[in-house]
């Protein structure tokens, strides 16, 4: 089941990227998407890099173990937990640093003086998707580490973690794509 969902997610993410890219090409002549990730500085870039790398390690270790074996253990699990530590801190910092620029309240288009935020709608949506999925994924794992939950609840938490983890990966890919696209567009 998990494998099918993972595959479906992969296809969906690829489809979204392709559609978005094509629609961007079509709009190119009329309206250039205004994007910029600059302004967050070196620290922001570094934190973002940590977040993306830790997400990649988390995704790699889980998919490498779960898809063929159905479970994660051994060195893969250890690496997964190690990367989780970095992910927690990086996600928090990125959320704090990117929240204001990704505020959904103000429009992305319109006269330049009325557009204080620096990211496109696509980037902002993928960012909040990333944060929400990250919180669910983190929360489910954090709860399962407490003695509060018994085995059936821990198993449920694990299931939630697995699928919210997939959502994190999807969001991370979409976000990275949109940010990269923005930087390319910004020249």
């Amino acid at each position: 089941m998990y494998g099918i969902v993972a595959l479906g997610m992969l296809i969906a993410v690829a489809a979204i990227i392709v559609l978005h890219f094509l629609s961007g090409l079509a709009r190119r002549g009329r309206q250039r998407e205004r994007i910029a990730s600059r302004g967050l500085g070196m620290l922001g870039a570094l934190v973002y890099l940590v977040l993306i790398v830790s997400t990649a390690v988390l995704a790699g270790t889980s998919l490498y173990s779960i898809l063929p074996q159905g479970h994660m253990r051994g060195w893969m699990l250890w690496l997964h937990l190690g990367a989780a530590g970095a992910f927690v801190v990086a996600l928090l910092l990125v959320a704090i640093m990117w929240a204001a620029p990704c505020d959904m309240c103000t429009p992305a288009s319109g006269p330049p003086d009325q557009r204080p935020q620096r990211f496109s709608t696509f980037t902002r949506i993928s960012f909040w998707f990333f944060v929400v999925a990250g919180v669910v994924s983190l929360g489910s794992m954090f709860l399962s580490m407490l003695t509060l939950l018994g085995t059936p609840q821990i198993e449920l938490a694990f299931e939630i973690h697995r699928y919210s983890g997939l959502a994190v990966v999807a969001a991370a890919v979409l976000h990275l794509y949109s940010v990269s696209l923005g930087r390319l567009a910004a020249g």
Partner: protein
Amino acid sequence: MWLWCAAAAVVVLAASGERALAQDRFARTDSRNQYVHRIQLYDASKKLIDPSDPNAPPYSPMATCGKCHDYKAIAHGWHFNALEKGAPAGRPGEPWIWTDRRTGTQIPLSYRGWDGTFQPGEVGMSRWDFITTFGRHYPGEAGPEETAPEGRWNLSGALAIDCMICHGDNRSYDPEAYAKQIAKHNFAWAPTAAIGLGYVSGDVSRLPEKFDPAKPPEEGKPSLPKVAYYQHKFNPDKEVFFDIVRRPSTNNCYYCHTARPVGPGTPADWNQDNDVHMKAGLSCVACHRNGIEHHTVRGFEGEKHPDGADVSTLSCRGCHIGEHDATSLAEFGGRLGSPRPHHGGIPPLHFESLSCTACHSGPLPDMSAGQMQTSLAHELGLPSQTREDGDQPIIIAPVYLRNEAGVIEPRRMVWPAYWARMSADGETVTPINPEAAYGVVRSSLRIRNDFMREVGEARLSAAEKAKLLGEERAKLRETELTQEEQLKLARATVEKAAGEFPEKITKALAAFAKDKKSGEGVPVYISAGKLYRLGDDGKLVITEGHAAAKPYSWPLGHDVRPARQALGAAECTDCHAADSPFVHGTVAAAGPAPDATPVTMKMAALQGLDEDLWQAWTLSFQGRDAFKIVAMVALALLTLVLVLYGLRALGGFGAWLNRPK
């Protein structure tokens, strides 16, 4: 058509006739009420016994109990079928350990062919020898081998299953009396003496070789044993009251199934709690159940019952948790009100990698695995004035090993020790029967009674004692010394004995080389995982890891500790720590030979764990609490950000909805 009807009628009549016969053969009350057994006694030839007859034969459980119960079916049950041809081997369990202290022998035996055990016949032990050695704790059903001469079985009688060993309820059943009769070779008389129906006199073991049981007894001449039945126990109808319970009491099981930890640091018997299930009011048979066929449920996961019955909920997991995809009531677990464990915060992979017993059963692990004694191996249940903690056979527990299914479970472990002959290529090692080995061991090593004690305890000279304890303290009696000083002396004694052992064993092996009576091949001695032999130059060669010296282990299920005393119940660091006995504990091979540098294994290696990985886990667990705090703070802040911007977004959405058209 008429023919078809006739045929059908014949079949129906035959079937009903068969059913009627089956109903007549054995009696049942089909009630939960315990039937009162006021019954007449029958001898082995199924003749009614007259208790007033001075020559009355002993009662036979086979004939007496078998009158109403299916003895044949019972005899195929797990407790009784080991000697039966084609009996299932089942999951390896505790072996019979042939212990001969004079020769430093401890050989794990089993008729079930468990890997790592010897078939008694392989080591020259006949069925007669087996019963006379182990009959004290053997529940019955043994006669001469089909291929072997009858020997003295015609005098002793066959050893029938003694139903009352388990089903007797008034504590008048005396297993010691049973064992004494077995020791006298009075097999057929043992049940009568043990249940106390009469006084048994006579001793088959003292009857001359050429004794003819068919001859009428003569005054003053040796005769077969006699029973004087206690008349007051019988009513005028020659009936006697048997206090029987359908479900045997735990007390009866304990006679054969007691296991006690021994050695330094072990709490005294009175200060041990035994199995938590017993304290909760359960009995052994609450889980280890059987029907009339006596296929007693052993209670491990994945057990296939010979009847095809679903016994999954009679295992720890099945009962306390139930089957994951339970579809029927029998699979839900919770039997007898068993509580479902919370296992709060324990990742489920633990339940895939570890058996329930790994955390819950046996003595708590120590950095070096301790010793255990069991009924079968150490004759527990029988009084002894000489039994000591370090007695042979030396059984070590708990040892955490991975089973065939890859699950880590606690086990008991014993290293074989014996004199043997090895083939020239070193592949085949054939044990020498201890009886045959004793002569050579005695003459070469001057052993009288106890190889382990006499070879293993060297005497320290006064100068050596003074060097260890100082001039003044060395003059004191051992009882006046402190515990630490006593330990110092004991350690020095063992070290000295171990230092002297190579010379002694060389002498003994040279003597075996000259002795042709004990067989052909290179003489060897095996103990505690090492194989001792003489090289071509006559010097001692010690080999570790030879297949013949490998230990035999079997899973332990009891005593189950209360949940709060389970490993991991208090802290993850019960196991995930640098000083955790579960992983970093050691198991030193133990045997009768003194050994200053025993073969030592780490628990992690025995469990097949990646030690680097485990080290990494141990390190990461040091920061686990900090990680929890960081994660909690991060989650709280992230949630705050989400709520804040979520509300802003909602506000914005509202404003967008209310925008001027």
